């Protein structure tokens, strides 16, 4: 009798996990296929003729690039140099040094020959005190704000207060941005300036790529498997997921490493929240909430063409911290706006995107872990036959591989950047290999992040071991 009861309970949970896996994979598949068709139609970067016409236009809106920096002495020179050389006629770079303990400020002052400025904030966001503002004498203005440490969100808010552009682009100070990224990023805003309040772009992995004159010159697949696994993950997340969500106007996250916002909209929403770890996601969810509550027509869009290159961790220790932080950020953002969950007042955001993030992004790792545990238990207690367990595991894993390889193919057909078929082969290998060990480790770390998030653990800037860019030739 007890035996039957145990079996029933076991199959109830196992059935639940299988159903869960089927639903999540169906959604992933739908989003990926939607992304393919959407990219085919809408992924139309400006042609040379259009690009020239735009660059000569006096009507392009002014953009302030806000780059928060904490201990970025190793990469800030290259990154800021790269930002200053972007193809856009009307922009400024605002680097916010959030009380770095290394020589970030010194490097900036010496490299860009900055002078002390008296620029005052026009925004009213409350931030930690500013120590000093510096400016360059170059035609493209560089503003460096030295402030007391207050975290990434606080640094961005300081930049927002002092920015002069009608649009602000938040970028990580360790990133390299494609030369035409600003033009491509501003496209949705130009198409619909009344409604578009935020635009997200694509973030890609720069590890082992050649950097020349502050820009990525040769794109390579990294020699590190960990970096390649992350390259596949990024492709899956950006080209697979975000395109689909953007199509339905329920994109809940715009990467803090690369996002364009209407400055007045961010100020209206109250800026980035310094009390959260996932400040990028929290702001986007909050914007959805405010605009939907007001019943105002708006769009939060993702565009695939503009690319920002970022260095991903190659050490498991740093990656562990990063993933725990990301998971905590997701938990915090969703918990803070929990009233949106399943609330028809918030349209597709409340009825689809929010439940999706809560069920699959936040709780997904816990369910996945439960699935592994149940399968192991079933095998140990001979409740399920080993061939069946292996079969269902294989189905699940290969489906994950199909989604990853499809994302890689999407990247090939849209952005088409890796120069040789050998790179494709290595990325495919990474897409397959990540399912055997790496994915399970990530799941475990995310569960740790979920627990920490539930406990309400706080955190500041994430630690990142900078290897610096692989610089080729002389940089000016």
């Amino acid at each position: 009798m007890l035996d039957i009861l145990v079996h029933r309970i076991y199959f109830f949970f196992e059935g639940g996990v299988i159903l869960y896996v089927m639903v999540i994979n169906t959604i992933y598949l739908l989003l990926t296929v939607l992304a393919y068709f959407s990219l085919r139609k809408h992924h139309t970067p400006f042609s040379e003729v259009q690009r020239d016409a735009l660059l000569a236009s006096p009507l392009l809106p002014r953009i302030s690039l806000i780059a928060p920096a904490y201990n970025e002495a190793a990469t800030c020179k290259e990154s800021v140099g790269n930002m200053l050389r972007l193809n856009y006629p009307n922009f400024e770079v605002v680097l916010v040094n959030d009380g770095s303990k290394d020589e970030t400020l010194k490097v900036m002052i010496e490299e860009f020959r900055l002078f002390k400025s008296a620029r005052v904030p026009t925004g009213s966001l409350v931030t930690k005190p500013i120590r000093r503002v510096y400016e360059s004498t170059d035609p493209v203005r560089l503003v460096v704000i030295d402030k007391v440490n207050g975290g990434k969100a606080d640094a961005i808010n300081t930049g927002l207060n002092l920015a002069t552009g009608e649009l602000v682009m938040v970028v990580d100070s360790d990133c390299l941005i494609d030369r035409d990224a600003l033009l491509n990023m501003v496209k949705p805003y130009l198409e619909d300036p009344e409604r578009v309040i935020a635009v997200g772009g694509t973030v890609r992995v720069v590890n082992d790529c050649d950097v020349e004159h502050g820009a990525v010159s040769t794109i390579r697949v990294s020699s590190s498997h960990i970096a390649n696994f992350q390259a596949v993950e990024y492709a899956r997340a950006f080209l697979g997921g975000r395109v689909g969500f953007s199509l339905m106007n329920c994109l809940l996250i715009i990467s803090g490493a690369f996002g364009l916002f209407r400055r007045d909209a961010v100020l209206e929403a109250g800026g980035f929240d310094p009390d959260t770890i996932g400040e990028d996601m929290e702001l986007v969810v909050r914007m959805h909430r405010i605009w939907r509550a007001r019943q105002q027509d708006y769009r939060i869009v993702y565009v695939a063409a503009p690319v920002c290159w970022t260095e991903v961790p190659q050490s498991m220790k740093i990656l562990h911290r990063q993933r725990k932080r990301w998971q905590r950020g997701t938990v915090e953002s969703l918990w803070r706006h929990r009233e949106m969950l399943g609330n028809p007042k918030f349209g597709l955001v409340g009825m689809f995107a929010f439940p999706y993030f809560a069920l699959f992004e936040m709780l997904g790792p816990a369910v996945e872990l439960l699935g592994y545990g149940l399968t192991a238990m079933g095998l140990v207690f001979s409740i399920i036959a080993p061939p069946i367990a292996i079969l269902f595991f294989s189905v699940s894993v290969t489906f994950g591989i199909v989604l990853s390889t499809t994302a890689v193919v999407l990247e090939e057909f849209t952005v088409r950047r890796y120069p040789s078929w050998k790179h494709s082969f290595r990325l495919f290998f990474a897409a397959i290999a990540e399912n055997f060990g790496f994915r399970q480790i990530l799941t475990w770390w995310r569960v740790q992040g979920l627990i920490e998030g539930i406990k309400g653990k706080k955190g500041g800037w994430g630690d990142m071991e900078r290897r610096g860019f692989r610089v080729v030739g002389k940089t000016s």
Partner: protein
Amino acid sequence: MIFPSWFPRRVAIALEGVDWDRVLLFARALLAIAFFLYPVWWIHVHVVSATVPQAPLSLAISFLGVQFAVIVAELLASCVVKKMDEVRGRRSRRWRPLIRRSLAAHLAGQNVSAELNIFRKHRPRETEICLAEMLAAVNGQARQRLSELAVSLHLVERWEKHATRGRQELREVIEWLGLLSPAIGGPALVRVLKAASATFESRWLPKRTLPATVASTLCSRIRVAGEAELNQICHEILAAPLLVRTMAASDLRVQADGSGAAAISRALSSADPGRATVALQLAEAWRRTIDAPALAALLRHKSSVVRGLALKLIPFQGVAAAFEAEVLAGLQTGLRAGADDAGAQEVLAGALSAVARLRLMRALPLVGQCASSANASLARQACFTLAALGEEGQALLESKIHSGPHQQAARAAESLMSLRAGRLPAGGI
């Protein structure tokens, strides 16, 4: 969409509001998923179920098999595309310099038509790309000569056919035709656009042309259009979305004093504040003079945005002094209304900009009051304006540093430092 008379009206209204582009995308996605799942079902029924009687297991095995096939197919497709790109890249690196050299020789007056005909026959894609690149870089006689070459090489005919292949191709051809001389490009462009609209109209679902394609179309039309058409095209650009206006701004500027002037005047005199705003923004960007009576009318417009923009244009007028009273009135109105009135703040910003450019000393006391505004952006602009007003304005700023509240002192210091660093923004902004 056009519905037959018997069609229920309510349903028709509901269908009008549907985003058909999105519905089509979803339908395609679902079809693609069905295309992926059908082989699973087929393998399950016809192959695996014969040996594996349990349906779930049989389905799982079939699913696994299809997934493996998909992974292999994707890998192969990716590698093939890469390889093809590599070959194409190598080919174009080899041929393009040769084609460019021949084109340059043709421009220099040499007879290289035989050579170019061979290139056109064997490397048509490379030839047309090189020709388009060169057309984009030249003007006048050289443009005419290259346009004639495009006709003699039958490239214009080829482009017209190429345009019917898809949206991307259509945009590319529209841009290339816009680079040709008006006599050659104009008629060809009309033919291409007529063919394209016929294609779109023949479909039963409404087809929206992408804004970037609309922008390219208008830019090309304005470059190759005859005098009679220019006014209409300028009118269309002024009524188009921001992306189109931004992209066409440079081409439109060329026409602004000629055939396009009437369209701009019509927009300026429009009762619709949106259209007047667009025309004023363009005039401001071009630093262009507009008719004094028109400007006077705009300064009395019911929309505060229009009035603010009109004030900004005063310094570019030849008779700017005639409008000084309007600038002072703008400052007074803005100050009376207070920081909460967004419309009045627009007027105030426009007036401050005019004061800074005109160095209007009579406005000094009013600008001094603006520097204490609760609106931080306006107060900052007022400080910059004071800095532009010479010694008296700077003295006022210095007094604010010594005795004003903290925020005001900071703004005053900022504007004085900008002045000393030679970075005072024009127009006080």
